[in-house]
């Protein structure tokens, strides 16, 4: 695995206030990296330094081995980004907006612009003024301008902000495709775990300008891990007693669902037992508890959601 981006002891102070206090992490090629933290943690500030909008007080950021600090023009060629809201020129059409950014990078043909428009699904509205676009459409425009030059690193600051569930899922699928098929490294920031955990390979948690931990997403759901299972069945009481008697599981009933905590490896066994006992099962929902628990533990429940 080659490294796409490397943060080396990155600090940022504004005035005499330390905002970023020494970040060290690397992003691998073709990986989707989630950058998670509560409001004011320093996500946007870090992203601004990654793309050269803000100076790095001390430390360095290397993009494909090139320092953004010392060699901005080369390093930034590899990067496509949205920083905070994807603001466009409201008085120009989507097409003109994209043309504007295309002109700033060598060798971007009109064909490529059309391709990107198709990719984000904006063909119909592209000749209308951006001022008339909905937030979701502007978010797509933001992604389109970031992809024009086929960057090897895509940085998206809160890309799901303002999107409806269908839009979020679409972006998620799209980001996964980019990473898996085109080996693009993607950095997505968010303050909502639920919005990014499904698309990320790893998630770094930042709080008060410090990286608290970096977690592999798959890791949180290995065979031995305990998961919470919610069962929607026809006879709650009967299921409860079966689980207690045959699997020795503690259960409770929450919102008309039987809830149990068990090792992931015993889930198939549980389902088999219930089928044998002739229980009608409408839904078996497995919640990934560990990651969430970890975040709540680290950051505190009310600040993260």
């Amino acid at each position, binding site marked *: 695995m080659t490294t796409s981006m490397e943060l080396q002891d990155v600090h940022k102070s*504004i005035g005499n206030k330390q905002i970023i206090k020494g970040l060290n992490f690397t992003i691998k090629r073709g990986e989707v990296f989630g950058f998670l933290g509560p409001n004011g943690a320093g996500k*946007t500030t870090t992203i*601004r330094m990654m*793309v*050269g*909008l*803000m*100076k790095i007080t001390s430390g360095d950021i290397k993009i494909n081995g090139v320092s953004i600090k010392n060699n*901005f*023009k*080369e390093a*930034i*060629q590899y*990067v496509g*980004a949205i*920083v*905070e*809201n*994807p*603001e*466009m*020129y*409201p*008085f*120009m059409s989507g097409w*003109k907006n994209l*043309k*504007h*950014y295309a*002109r*700033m*990078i*060598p060798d971007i043909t009109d064909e490529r612009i059309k391709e990107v428009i198709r990719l984000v699904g904006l063909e119909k509205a592209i000749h209308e003024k951006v001022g008339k676009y909905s937030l979701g459409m502007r978010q797509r425009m933001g992604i389109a*301008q970031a992809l024009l030059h086929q960057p090897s690193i895509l940085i998206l600051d809160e890309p799901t902000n303002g999107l409806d569930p269908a839009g979020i899922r679409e972006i998620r699928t799209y980001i996964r495709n980019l990473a898996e098929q085109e080996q693009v490294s993607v950095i997505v920031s968010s303050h909502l775990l639920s919005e990014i955990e499904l698309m990320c390979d790893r998630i770094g948690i930042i709080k008060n300008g410090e990286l608290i931990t970096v977690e592999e997403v798959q890791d949180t759901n290995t065979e031995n891990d305990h998961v919470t299972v919610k069962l929607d069945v026809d006879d709650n009481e009967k299921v409860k007693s079966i689980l207690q008697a045959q699997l020795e599981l503690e259960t409770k009933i929450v919102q008309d669902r039987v809830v149990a905590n068990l090792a992931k490896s015993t889930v198939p066994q549980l389902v088999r037992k219930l089928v044998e006992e002739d229980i009608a099962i409408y839904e078996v929902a497995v919640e990934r508890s560990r990651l969430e628990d970890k975040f709540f533990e680290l950051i505190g429940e009310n600040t993260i959601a």
Partner: protein
Amino acid sequence: MLNFISLLKNEQMKLYSRFATWSMYIILAGILLVGALIVFIFGEENEQTYGDDWKGQLAQENEELLEMNEDVGFVGFDSEIAVNEYHIENDVKPHPYDAWQFTLENAGLSMIISLFTIIVAAGIISNEYRWGTIKLLLIRPISRTKILLSKFVSVLLFSVTMLVFLFIISLVIGAIFFGINGWNPNLVQMGANEVEEVSIFAEIFTQYGLNMVNLVMMATFAFMISTLFRSSAMAIGLAIFLMFTGNTIIGFVAEYDWAKYILFANTNLNQYIGSGSPIIDGMTLGFSITVLVVYFVLFLLVSWLTFTKRDIAGN
């Protein structure tokens, strides 16, 4: 170079995609049209036609002017008399009022172009901040210096385009209302010491050029203020205030020696041309040009330093 031209294209596209820009052209054309109508309806110049006996008409005019001179008691009409005499002596028939003279008279409207250019210069950087687009603009493989330069050159390009527009629309409106006499008629006017005959075309461009000096200086000033404070309102306000009060300020402090180093003492190069005289004794054209260049470089340097060094932080 190629990508600098692309940057200029971008800036022009953004400028001309907005109605505000077009409204400036509309306002300018509107003022000219109203001016032409007023001259056409109430003006006397266009009624003054010279027949076959134009020499006799001019001689009579001169007598009237001499009388008025004596009535008033000072030499108010000396130059008109001299001009008329030049016509008679050199056998040059005065042209009736036409599109060329209309265009020359309206060269003063480049003052309005200065105003519009200040507005454009004040917005070209600060608007990117206001719209939030500055973030997407500065994450391309192009140095900030180049982006700043392309914006400044775009402002100048805008003012030149407007001047060309002013010239063409003046000629067209003038031609419609007053007709046109040839393609480059001469104009007899009072020079530095004596009456001279100049090409009206050259005269129009001298006037445009002289007004450009003031225009470029004030636009550069507005450009600097807007880069510095990221506020177009402040830049427009300050630049226009100074443009209109500059001469008054000079009037107040003219007695001091340092007054000649003030920008506004030097922006009006008309003081060295034709019958003009310097605002402050001892100033020369060379001196003024040096002062102007120093201010110009200073304004650009301040813009450059703030634009290239500043963090693009959220606001």
